[in-house]
């Protein structure tokens, strides 16, 4: 009887060691074709139920609120457009320089999951991946708003870091005064940091992306709306000033987003 228990325990120990070894191998060879094939199948199977479940309860119940939110967003976008047009106009007038239009390619995706706090998620999982041609570093948008940047790409899913994520950073500017800085994620707010003290920051000013492209031609397009300045922190003895920024889009209500696959 004792021997049977001992042999059973030995079998279990061997099984656990073998499975641990296989797990370790798969962890190190996660980009090998069989692993990617398995990952693709699993992600395909769970894509529909996760998408349906994520959408439930996210649709605006109050149509009036939804309409007003939409109008508000449109006005904010128009305001930024106006400021950018004004600035461009001035530049064109003074320098008489014309610039060619950029062509963008967008990939539509649905949010199917999140990580972090439900109200201010630090990451989103979207149902588009390598098969749709997505790559790390691509920007994710909703209308004229920046939703985040892709950090991990799977076969059919990708992980997007939102500006709330502490690892998130993007070059930004305040078009109204042309103050440049960097947006940093601070878990429950965004920090517009590294702004030269001589630049002017205004409360309620709308912060947009400055635009950044890496050597692969992937990055964040300029003039995407990030958020509104809520408070300014300025110390005359310091060479830089910063401001707290609140995003203008409601992250928990987002469902459909777009990935800029070509800038």
């Amino acid at each position, binding site marked *: 009887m004792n021997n049977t228990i001992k042999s059973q325990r030995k079998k279990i120990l061997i099984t656990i060691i073998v499975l641990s070894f296989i797990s370790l191998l798969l962890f190190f060879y*996660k980009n090998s074709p069989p692993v990617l094939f398995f990952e693709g199948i699993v992600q395909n199977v769970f894509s529909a139920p996760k998408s349906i*479940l994520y959408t439930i309860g996210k649709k605006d119940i109050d149509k009036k609120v939804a309409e007003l939110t939409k109008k508000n967003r449109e006005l904010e976008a128009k305001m930024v457009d106006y400021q950018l047009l004004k600035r461009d106009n001035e530049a064109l007038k003074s320098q008489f320089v014309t610039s060619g239009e950029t062509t963008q390619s967008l990939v539509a995706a649905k949010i199917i999951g999140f990580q972090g706090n*439900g109200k201010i998620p630090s990451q989103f999982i979207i149902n588009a991946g390598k098969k749709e041609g997505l790559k790390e570093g691509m920007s994710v948008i909703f209308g004229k708003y920046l939703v985040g940047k892709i950090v991990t790409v799977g076969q059919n899913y990708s992980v997007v870091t939102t500006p709330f994520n502490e690892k998130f950073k993007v070059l930004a500017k305040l078009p109204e005064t042309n103050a440049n800085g960097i947006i940093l994620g601070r878990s429950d707010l965004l920090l517009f940091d590294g702004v030269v003290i001589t630049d002017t920051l205004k409360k309620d000013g709308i912060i947009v992306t400055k635009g950044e492209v890496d050597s692969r031609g992937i990055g964040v397009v300029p003039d995407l709306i990030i958020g509104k300045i809520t408070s300014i922190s300025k110390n005359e003895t310091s060479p830089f000033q910063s401001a707290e920024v609140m995003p203008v889009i409601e992250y928990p209500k987002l469902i459909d987003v777009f990935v800029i696959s070509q800038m």
Partner: protein
Amino acid sequence: MTNLKYFLALLIISFLGVVLETTVINFPIVFLIASVLLLFVKKIQGYIGIFILGFIIDAVRVTNFGMTPLFLFGAALCILLYEKYSGSRDLVVAAVILGAMAFAYVYFLSYSLSLLIVFFALVVLTTILLNILKKRGVVFG
């Protein structure tokens, strides 16, 4: 037939766990289901099931493929080694090891730590309450 029923029930619970996790709640449901299986189903088929479940949740979460089975089997190895050298098969010790592993898992894979603390507090409270009721003969005769 009973085994098949248990298997089907586990399959449904696991499927729900995979779908709910990160979609509705940022809580390691699958890890906890697998931990319960590790504690009570000490069979080779059970371990293979846990292995597959771990890979499914890693594939769905996109990041750290292979991390969940590594955490689970790391805990299982600790439990087995403890049982081998102490000669005891205390469930409380095994549960404590799995609990510690769950905290490490939540920390490394960015799940909600506060939800896990609330969950463990509820589990401990329920266990204490059931023990008191059992002693008084209110439940389980």
